[in-house]
């Protein structure tokens, strides 16, 4: 049990700054609430799906922005998708970047869009790293016989 409680404490310590620094928000908590015996890997599934989506969208946006004549409408719709996805899983920072990204798209500001895209990438990479660590910790806890505590 010591290991378990240690692990759990580790998890809690890891999660707290994630919330504090805005990597995830309340929505993420909600997702964790949804995870139960009937869908034990729900969060991981959703997160994986999100990352897939995100990569695809980022690639598309990068391609669109490289064109000579940028189709901002296209870029905008991608950003919209990304914003929707990120808010669904509670990726607060990505969502915020998307908001700014949208503004640049509407202003048809290529430089701004490119900057935002870079930032999206940056955030995405960070979040992916963080969440993967989280999942690892959770797996360890489950392996140790415990259940993943829902974070308030």
């Amino acid at each position, binding site marked *: 049990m010591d290991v378990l409680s240690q692990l759990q404490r580790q998890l809690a310590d890891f999660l707290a700054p994630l919330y504090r*620094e*805005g990597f995830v928000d*309340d*929505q993420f908590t*909600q*997702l964790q*609430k*949804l995870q*139960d015996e*009937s*869908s034990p890997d*729900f969060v991981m*599934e*959703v997160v994986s*799906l*999100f990352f897939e*989506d995100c990569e695809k969208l980022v690639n598309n946006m990068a391609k669109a922005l490289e064109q000579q004549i940028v189709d901002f409408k296209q870029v905008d719709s991608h950003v*919209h*998708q990304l914003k*929707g*996805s990120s*808010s*669904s*899983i*509670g990726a607060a*920072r990505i969502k*915020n*970047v998307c*908001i*700014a990204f949208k*503004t640049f798209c*509407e202003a048809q500001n290529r430089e701004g869009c490119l900057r935002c895209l870079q*930032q999206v990438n940056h955030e995405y990479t960070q979040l992916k790293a963080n969440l993967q660590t989280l999942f690892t910790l959770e797996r360890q806890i489950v392996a140790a016989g415990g259940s993943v505590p829902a974070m308030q």
Partner: protein
Amino acid sequence: MESCNCIEPQWPAEELLMKYQYISDFFIALAYFSIPLELIYFVKKSAVFPYRWVLVQFGAFIVLCGATHLINLWTFSMHSRTVAVVMTTAKVLTAAVSCATALMLVHIIPDLLSVKTRELFLKNKAAELDREMGLIRTQEETGRHVRMLTHEIRSTLDRHTILKTTLVELGRTLALEECTLWMPTRTGLELQLSYTLRQPNPVEYTVPIQLPVINQVFSSNRAMKISPNSPVARLRPLSGKYMPGEVVAVRVPLLHLSNFQINDWPELSTRRYALMVLMLPSDSARQWHVHELELVEVVADQVAVALSHAAILEESMRARDLLMEQNVALDHARREAETAIRARNDFLAVMNHEMRTPMHAVIALSSLLQETELTPEQRLMVETILRSSNLLATLINDVLDLSRLEDGSLRLDLGSFNLHAVFKEVLNLIKPIASVKKLPVTLNLAPDLPEYAIGDEKRLMQTILNVVGNAVKFSKEGSISITAFVAKSESLRDSRAPDFFPVPSDNHFYLRVQIKDAGQGINPPDIPKLFTKFAHAQTLATKNSSGSGLGLAICKRFVNLMEGHIWIESEGLGKGCMAIFIVKLGIPENTSESKNPFLPKANHGQTTFPGLKVLVLDDNGVSRMVTKELLVHLGCDVTTASSRDECLHVVSQDHKVVCMDAGMPDGFEAAVRLHEKFTKRHERPLIVALTGNTDKVTKENCMRVGMDGVILKPVSVDKMRSVLSELLEHRVLFEAM
């Protein structure tokens, strides 16, 4: 006739004389015999002759005289005794008849004479009657003229025509040389020649009103003769050689509307008169007759009446025109105001979105910037940017809120909430700031204050927070106390709130909140200004007053919407102040389970919805998955679709609810198609839109395409649970935006 008795030879001595006598007698006899014949003849001819007996007598007398003279013829020569006897008889008879006639004539002649006088008398009478007839006829004529004149005058309401007609008709009736009308000027000191009969264009000619002759005419209502040499009568040099015609003047009263008071008749002293002057033709030796003067007087009166009618009509026409003008102007102004309001609303609707978007971007990016590596100066700058932009965002929201409040489009979102929790939340929010300023804040909730109430929780909290915030902001020392209790009817009617008429009822109560502070205080005369927009009370510490100036105005609007009243009392600068407001809240029927105060109403919550068939429509894979899991967690049987066509393909009557993402490009169209597919209401699944947009436009669009509900993302489990139960119970849910 002497008969000589001597028998003498007559012939040769006086033969000539005898011859003449002889002839004379013969003719006399002839005449005497013919006269009665003539008499008889003519009397027979005439019908009236009363004295036949006299005639007979007279005839007899004459016949006998004639006989006498005839018999005298025989007495010139030798005549027998028979002739003498006849002669004597004749003479005797003649004497008898003549005496009788003489006696008779004494009786008759006075009679005959009186016949003559009677005849004379009758002739005179006839002449007189003739004259009178003529007079009556003339009067009748003039009477007819007056009637016609009056008719002419009264048949028009135009004052010009009235006056002109009067002069023309008078001129014609009375055969005048000239007829003029003098009207008083505005000043009332002069009479001006206004209308003439013969002169085509009256020259501007005035006479002072105080002339004796004019005074004389004005003092009586009769037509008076005036001298032809008076200034009103001498218009042009004398045209005739001899005498100018006689002149008559009469006054014409001018009646004004103001002359007619309800209870008394117009005073004579305030009357104004016009003067009508009539001149007979010169050299005509005509005189003014009484009946003509009467005619003139009657006409003058009629003219006065007609003129007053015309004046009244003019007044009413003018008033009506004025009213019409004003109407048009008012209508125009109203339309302009409406246009202005519409323009403002359009502007606000646009600005709502336009202003919020950049603000979001600024705030989002500044907060992101804050997270990066910054030097202390940069951090300070970024914090300032964040603070300012937050303030700006609040201000924008306030302004937009206020304008929505103003045009009455804001409605309270009533719901059941925990009243105690609201106060505690306010306390929690304000405590950090107050403790920094070292101001203790105390909260006193009356024991009879209900725990739950029905009202607009968000706005009530906004109001309390604003007022408490002001108390904290404007206090440098002292403590702040918040008291809340249920207001009883005596305390409801406050002399400081004279327009407030609270009506207590069974399912409502009045919450009274008092916030007292010992801060700067307010000058009592400035208190009313506090609740007006953008008006600051300029206090000494103006650099501390960073209020936007809108807060209290918005609070007042909210309180008014809650059928309440808010006011502030202060004894003066430096003496602190107390803000008090009373609002009407509903009493919930059943005090149901306590819930997190910021969730929407859900008095009876179904915890799970086993077997509820729900269709999730979202083109974003992640969102779709999350929503699906939410619903699965609540026990629903979830089907998903990622496009409109797929949705329409998959949907069936079994699906009770369709959750769709409002941000989808053809989300609305899907809703429309769903309506088309399921025409009967009970067959159709309830359509709920999930959206991240907070504005009214999205909500309106959703309502327009026939959505049954709109939910604001992010959706938590509890939220989804309460939404579903609400939806299934009432079949409609429109969450506050």
